[in-house]
């Protein structure tokens, strides 16, 4: 295991040290004293494990293609921006636009997430990006989502905010949003998505994600499954078709 002291180290220097460590064959790297350094592990295409102590800066793991990052703290905005493969695990909360344009891999967050999580996520063949949120999400959850899986658990029942903020699923035209319990209807973009109970097939695709989430964050799977899940599905593959002039 390689430890890199990040306190006071500029993000470029920190990323150079991290890349040098994994190039040198390190399979596990611990970044100590991280605070606000941007772009950590951006574009890395290796199978290393990276532990982050502290609060990483924006665009953690952007364009990442393989590593497994574990954040022992909160994460800021833009986690997993356009990431392609690998995993990001956040033990605290994470900010806005998490998983923006994500194309593969997975992100698991124990706590709450901010605005526009999963915006423009997409899937292609066996590349299916997955995001699991243990807490609650703010507005525009799954906006313009084209593919992949978003799971929203709302496990902290002492929190009385709605599971997701307003405009959930606006412009969604592919993929699945799974919700433990139900969303208030006025927070769902009902012109673009419909809610229905999950099927056996849905449950099969959810199960490994829930198991992994529970193992990571010490939850009982039975407790998670105690509340029935629902699924948001797209109404149309072209939700804004009516906004354009017809082809004549």
């Amino acid at each position: 295991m390689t430890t890199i002291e990040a306190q006071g180290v500029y993000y470029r220097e920190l990323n150079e040290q991290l890349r040098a460590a994994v190039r040198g064959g390190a399979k596990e790297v611990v970044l100590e004293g991280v605070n606000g350094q941007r772009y950590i592990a951006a574009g890395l295409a290796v199978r290393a494990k990276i532990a982050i102590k502290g609060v990483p800066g924006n665009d953690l793991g952007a364009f990442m293609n393989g590593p497994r990052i574990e954040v022992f703290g909160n994460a800021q905005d833009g986690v997993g921006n356009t990431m392609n493969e690998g995993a990001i695990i956040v033990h605290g909360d994470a900010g806005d636009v998490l998983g923006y344009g994500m194309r593969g891999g997975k992100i698991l967050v124990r706590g709450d997430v901010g605005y526009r999580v999963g915006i423009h996520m997409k899937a292609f063949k066996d590349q299916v990006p997955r995001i699991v949120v243990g807490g609650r999400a703010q507005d525009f959850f799954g906006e313009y989502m084209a593919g992949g899986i978003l799971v929203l658990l709302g496990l902290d029942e002492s929190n009385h905010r709605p599971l997701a903020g307003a405009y959930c699923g606006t412009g969604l035209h592919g993929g699945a949003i799974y919700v433990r319990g139900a969303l208030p209807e006025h927070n769902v973009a009902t012109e673009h998505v419909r809610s229905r109970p999950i099927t056996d097939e849905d449950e099969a695709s959810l199960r490994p994600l829930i198991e992994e989430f529970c193992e990571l964050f010490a939850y009982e799977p039975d407790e998670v499954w105690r509340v029935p899940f629902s699924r948001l599905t797209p109404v149309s593959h072209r939700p804004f078709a009516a906004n354009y002039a017809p082809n004549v």
Partner: protein
Amino acid sequence: MNRPYEKNISGCGLIGLLNRDRRRVSGGVIVPGIRLLHDRTNGLGGGFAGYGIYPEYAELYAFHLMCDDAAAQIAAEEFLQAKFAVEQAEEIPTLKRHPGISNVPLLRRYFLAPKISPEETEEDWVIAQVMHVNAKIDGAFVFSSGKNMGAFKAVGYAEDVAEFFRLEEYEGYCWTAHGRFPTNTQAWWGGAHPFTLLDYSVVHNGEISSYGINRRYLEQYGYRCTLHTDTEVMVYLLDLLIRRHGLSIETACAALAAPFWRDIERAPEGEREVLRALRMTYGSALVNGPFAILFAHSGGMVGFNDRIKLRPMIAAEKGKTLYVASEEASIRQVEPDLDRVWMPKAGEPVIGCLEDART
């Protein structure tokens, strides 16, 4: 001072702290927080507002004046002497030179008692004098005009601006800081944040797309937009709605970032009518566009986002201190061990009040 054309748009970094118990801390305390946000900014503007920094002159208006040249300064000074009893006039202390700060204007400050007749409303009258200097005296700008508070700003990176103005020598119970990234206009000293009027100050990340409408609306009430930056209207709108029209901070924010009509229709009876009336009355005060702002005043500090969260903002608490910033790491650079960190709901202000503030 290089004065450009119309408005400015920016993508910036900001942080503020409020000690609700009035505990005063050095201006140097906030600097690591804004330095951490260096990469959000581009060196074309940095600034700070501090509250409680002039206790020896707490009853006097503290005017910070920047002037292009001696002629402008003489003209402004003559005007101030005619309108106010000048208790103290001095240079604003700065470093003689700083490698990150150039084109330094003449910087002076004045501690002033207004010479007004009893039938005048003192604050309106003082604002009129500020507007007069800024609009009528060529090359002179009052960039701070409150009591027991002050704004310090320049073209440069915020951390350099702090060194230049020797910020660590002041003590305040509230500090806000801003690093600028102007994208639409040239940078000049007056266009750096904060923007102030009396004790109100605003630092802002974003763009006020409704600047034109807001400006024309404000001009009807005697506000003159002279600083060529959109953020200016935010200060004047807050002054109009809160100080002059007597709205609470919550209500003023509900007018500036009014809920969408669909949300107003869903509001409980009573509240619904109030929100409707606010939107209709203050339609021209509606602030459109992406923004995160910190509004500070003698009684506290408010963090405030546009309705759909188009700019970052995070809040935290430690003991009696409230923090609001563009990034959590910025706050943790000031105070690593926080009691609580949260992501405020967009459009709903985070309101910090002094424990002893009159509200």
